[in-house]
């Protein structure tokens, strides 16, 4: 049986921290779990923390790209945080540029990136009360008002 990676929810953001060396099956499972969790939670952001990940091969790299694409279709932004320098160097040499995947150096910066992305996608001025309102009704309303 493969390891299952927990998907944590913090406000409007889903957080996944990969802590073990996952086999391919576990990687696919994570991809499916995350897509389901984005829909179930209505989260607007996904943060994938790979601080503890020692290697990213083409399979995991593809998973990161795919999650970013799936999330985008489900109205959520994905940020990959904590990539090690050796992993970045290896990915480029391997030929994987992870196009379409946003990255941030730390979890903190990743969360801020998501906040900014959300604020700008909702248009100016209204973003401050967003966290209190809490229900997803506000986003479609704002979009419908144009």
């Amino acid at each position: 049986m493969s390891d299952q990676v927990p998907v944590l929810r913090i406000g409007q953001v889903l957080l996944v921290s990969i802590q073990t060396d996952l086999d391919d099956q576990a990687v696919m499972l994570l991809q499916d779990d995350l897509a389901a969790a984005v829909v179930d939670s209505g989260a607007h952001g996904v943060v994938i923390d790979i601080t503890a990940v020692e290697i990213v091969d083409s399979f995991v790299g593809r998973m990161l790209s795919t999650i970013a694409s799936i999330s985008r279709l489900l109205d959520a932004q994905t940020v990959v945080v904590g990539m090690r320098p050796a992993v970045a160097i290896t990915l480029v040499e391997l030929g994987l540029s992870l196009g379409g995947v946003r990255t941030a150096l730390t979890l903190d910066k990743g969360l801020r990136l998501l906040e900014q992305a959300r604020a700008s996608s909702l248009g100016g001025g209204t973003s401050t009360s967003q966290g209190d309102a809490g229900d997803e009704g506000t986003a479609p309303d704002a979009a419908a008002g144009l």
Partner: protein
Amino acid sequence: MNSPGRDPQILEITANAAVVQARQLVRALAQECRLSLVEQTKLITAASELARNTLIYGGGGTMTAALVDERGRRGVRLVFADQGPGIPDTDLALTDGWTSGNGMGLGLSGSKRLVDDFVLDTAPGRGTTVTITKWAR
């Protein structure tokens, strides 16, 4: 070409879990060989790609891993062998983005870039053997 005082380790690659085991075994050898962190990462990544190829395209096989000492250089050598269908066109198989399955087509070409020596020995019906070596600097 064998490791001084120690036999090569042979890992059967017949399931997903073996790809994880391959990475762990190679990590241990790379550290023992005192490869730099970046060199370790490149070698483990290449091993992961090739172990997956052995499993998926070769229908399973083995990885033979050893520390080697040649002309005063120390390195890690990995041999991935399968009895699968073999590769008809090796030039094509080594082209970025080309795949016979549903992968990204970076396994062979990418891992070649990640190591110092790369030897591909294959023919249709004769299986595939990929030998890679990473030398300590």
